[in-house]
C-alpha cells in the first residue's frame, strides 16, 4: 500500500530485528508517519490540520482522563466537583481550561481540515472512503462535545441537554418516548448526567479507532495535494519523515501558541457565563445557545419557522420543528454523498474557475452568516439571514456542485506535481535523473502511477 519507491524499513539492532519478526510495530510506524511514507512534495500549510486534529484528540483524552479522576457525575455534586477541580486540585484549573478550550480548538482545526477537503476536493476518487470516515469522526465529535458540555451541570449544560434531546421529540409517533428513553427521565436529571458521562468517556476512544481507519484509508492512495494531480514519479514525493514531520512540528508550535494564549489569558472567552450558574430546572436562561462550534447547524435548525401546510386548508404536513431537525441532520449527512455529487475530474479549486467563485463568494460567506445567526437570539434580521444562508447551503451542495461540475471548463492542469513546483524544464530534468538513479521503478513510461503490491 505504497509507492514502489517507498523506503523499506530495515531493522538495525538485534532487538528491532527480533521485534520486527514478532510484532512489526516499528515497521508500521515507519510506513505510516516515517520515512516509509512518500507524500506529495507540494503540500501547503492547509495540510497541517490532520496531524493537529490528531494532536487535539490526544490533548482531550489525556486531560479528560485526569479530570475524570476528580469529577463526580452526580447532579447533586457535579457542579461542585468542577469547582473542586478549579480550586483544590493541583493545576486543576489548567487541566480544565485546557480541556474546555481544547474542545474548541479541536473544532477549529477540524473545520479547517474539512474546508481544505472541500476546496481541494479531497473527497473525490480514490479518496472517498477517507472522506466518509472523516464525516463519521465529525459526527462522533459533535456527540462527544455536546455530552461533555453537559457534565459541568451549569445552566447551559442543563438547558442545552433539554433542547438537543428535545430535537428527537420532533420525530413523529416515537419522538416523545424516544426523548424520555434517551434522557432516562422526563427532563435532564441524574440518569441523563450519568449516561452522558459514561458515553463522553467512551466516545473519544471510538473516535480514536475511526481515526486509525481514516489514516489507514489515507495510506492506500496516499495524501492528496493542492495541485490535485496524482503522484506520478518519485520526484513528485518526499518521505513523510523528515520533511513533513518538520513542517508539522512547526505547525504544531504555532497551534500551541494560539492554544496557550487562550487557555492562560482568555480561558472563558469561548464559553457562556451562564454555565457558571448551577443547573436550575425552574429558571430558563434568556437565550439558550449551544457552544460556538454548533452555531451554523443551530442556525439551520432554527431557520424553519413555518409549518409545511397545504395552503388554504390549514392541514399541517410537516411541523416546522421536524423540518428544522431534518435539515440540521441533513446538512451534515449530505456530506456522505458529496463524492458522488461533484463529478468534476479536476480536484483542486485553483483549476476550477466557476467552482472557485461559488466556494469563496457563496459557500464561505454562507458559513459565516450561519455562524453569526446561530449565535444570535432568534430575532430579526438574524432569522431572515439564517433562512437565506440555509437555502444557499443546501443549494450549494445539492444543486450548484452537480451542475457546476457538469458545465465548468477547468483550467489546464500541470502534467505532474514536480512540474507544478519546479516548472516544466526542471521537472523533466528531475524526472530523468530520477530514472537514472533507478528510483522510478513504479512509474510507467507514460508517467502514469503504478502502485506497488
Amino acid at each position, binding site marked *: 500500500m505504497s509507492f514502489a519507491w517507498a523506503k523499506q524499513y530495515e531493522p538495525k539492532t538485534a532487538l528491532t530485528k527480533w521485534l520486527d519478526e514478532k510484532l512489526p510495530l516499528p515497521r508500521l510506524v515507519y510506513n505510516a508517519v516515517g520515512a516509509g511514507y512518500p507524500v506529495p512534495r507540494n503540500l501547503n500549510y492547509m495540510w497541517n490540520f490532520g496531524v493537529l486534529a490528531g494532536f487535539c484528540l490526544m490533548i482531550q483524552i489525556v486531560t479528560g482522563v485526569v479530570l475524570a479522576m476528580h469529577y463526580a457525575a452526580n447532579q447533586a455534586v457535579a457542579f461542585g466537583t468542577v469547582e473542586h477541580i478549579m480550586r483544590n486540585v493541583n493545576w486543576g484549573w489548567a487541566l480544565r481550561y485546557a480541556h474546555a478550550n481544547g474542545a474548541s480548538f479541536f473544532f477549529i482545526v477540524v473545520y479547517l481540515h474539512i474546508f481544505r477537503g472541500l476546496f481541494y476536493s479531497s473527497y473525490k476518487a480514490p479518496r472517498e472512503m477517507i472522506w466518509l470516515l472523516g464525516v463519521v469522526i465529525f459526527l462522533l465529535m459533535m456527540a462527544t462535545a455536546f455530552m461533555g458540555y453537559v457534565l459541568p451541570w451549569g445552566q447551559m449544560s442543563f438547558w442545552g441537554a433539554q433542547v438537543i434531546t428535545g430535537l428527537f421529540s420532533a420525530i413523529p409517533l416515537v419522538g416523545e418516548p424516544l426523548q424520555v428513553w434517551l434522557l432516562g427521565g422526563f427532563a435532564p436529571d441524574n440518569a441523563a448526567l450519568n449516561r452522558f458521562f459514561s458515553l463522553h468517556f467512551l466516545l473519544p476512544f471510538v473516535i480514536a479507532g475511526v481515526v486509525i481507519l481514516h489514516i489507514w484509508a489515507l495510506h492506500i492512495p496516499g495524501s492528496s495535494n493542492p495541485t490535485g494531480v496524482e503522484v506520478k514519479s518519485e520526484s513528485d514525493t*518526499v518521505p513523510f519523515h523528515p520533511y513533513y514531520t518538520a513542517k508539522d512540528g512547526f505547525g504544531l508550535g504555532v497551534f500551541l*501558541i494560539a492554544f*496557550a494564549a487562550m487557555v492562560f489569558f482568555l480561558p472563558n472567552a469561548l464559553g457562556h457565563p451562564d454555565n*457558571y450558574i448551577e443547573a436550575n430546572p425552574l429558571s430558563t436562561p434568556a437565550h439558550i445557545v449551544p457552544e460556538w462550534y454548533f452555531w451554523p447547524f443551530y442556525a439551520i435548525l432554527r431557520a424553519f419557522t413555518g409549518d409545511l401546510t397545504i395552503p388554504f386548508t390549514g392541514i399541517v404536513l410537516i411541523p416546522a420543528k421536524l423540518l428544522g431537525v431534518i*435539515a440540521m441532520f441533513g446538512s451534515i449527512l449530505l456530506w456522505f454523498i458529496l463524492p458522488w*455529487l461533484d*463529478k468534476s475530474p479536476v480536484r483542486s479549486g485553483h483549476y476550477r474557475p466557476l467552482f472557485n467563485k461559488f466556494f469563496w463568494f457563496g459557500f464561505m460567506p454562507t458559513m459565516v452568516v450561519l455562524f453569526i445567526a446561530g449565535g444570535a437570539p432568534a430575532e430579526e434580521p438574524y432569522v*431572515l439571514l439564517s433562512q437565506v444562508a440555509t437555502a444557499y447551503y443546501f443549494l450549494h451542495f445539492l444543486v450548484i456542485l*452537480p451542475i457546476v461540475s457538469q458545465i465548468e471548463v477547468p483550467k489546464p492542469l500541470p502534467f505532474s506535481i514536480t512540474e507544478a513546483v519546479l516548472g516544466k524544464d526542471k521537472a523533466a530534468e*528531475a524526472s530523468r535523473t530520477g530514472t537514472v538513479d533507478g528510483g522510478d521503478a513504479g512509474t510507467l513510461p507514460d508517467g502514469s502511477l503504478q502502485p506497488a503490491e
Partner: protein
Amino acid sequence: MTIRLGGIIVGLAITAVLVLWSLVPGFINFAFGPPPEKQASYAFYEHGEGPEGGFSFDGPMGKWDVAQLQRGYQVYKEVCAACHSLKFVAFRNLQQLGYTEAEVDAEAASWTVPGLDPNTGEPTTRPGEPTDYFPSPYPNAIAAAAANNNAIPPDLSLMTKARHDGSNYVYDLLVGYGEADPEKAAKLGFETPPGLYFNKHFPNVNIAMPQPLVLDGQVSYADGTEATIPQMAKDVAAFLTWTAEPSLVQRKQTGWFVLGFLLFATALAFLSYKQIWAGMKPKKK
C-alpha cells in the same frame, strides 16, 4: 447520475419549503408587520463601563491588589454576607489575601458555622475553623426565599464569572441604583413594581436586591481608605473576582512562561523546517 439528479431534486425541494413557508412569511411579517414589542425597561437600561481606571488584575500582566482584596472581603463580611453565601470559598483560602495563619484562624473563628454537639449529636453551631467553608446566611433555600420576598439571593462565589464581563458588572450594579427618569417613565407608563428596586445597570432595570451600599463610610476600612460607595463597590467586585477564580494571577504568570517556551520551541521548529526543506527546491541528487 442518479445521485446527482436526486440531489438536485431534494436540494430544490428543501429550498422551496424553506423559502415559501418560512422565508416569505417571515419577510412579509418583518417588512410589513408590526414592529416587535420591546419592554419599556429597555429604555432605561444603561450599559456600565466599570470603575474608572479599571482593575489591577485586568490585562495579561494583571496582579491582585492585596490591600484591595482585604477591603473587599471586609465589605463582603459586613454587607453582602447578611444575605449572600460564598459556598466554594474556605477560610483557609484567605491566606492568599495576605493574612497570616494566625489571622486566618482568628478570622475563621469570628464566623459561626453549623456543627454537631459532640455529646448529644444534636445540630448546633460552633466557631469556624480554617478548613470550613463560608457558611450560608440561611439554613436552606426556602428560608432564603421567605426572607427575601421570594427571590433567593444567589451564591456569590462565582458571580463575576457567571455574568458577562463580571467584575465590571458587579461594580456597575452596585453603583447603578437610583430613580428612573420620571418624565420618561410617565411617558412610557413605566413603573418599578413594589418589592423591586430600580437599577439602570441591571438587564431589566428592576432588581429584587435593595441597594446594599447606601452611604459613604458604611464600612470603616482598617487601612484608612475612604469608604465611598464607588470605592466599596470596586473593592468588593475585586474580592468577588478573586473568589470566582483564585488562580487568576497564577494563571496569567504561568501563561507568560508557557508562551515564552513555546515561542522559543516554535522558532527552533521553524529553523529546522527551513533547513530540512532547503535542499528540496529544486531537488537534485
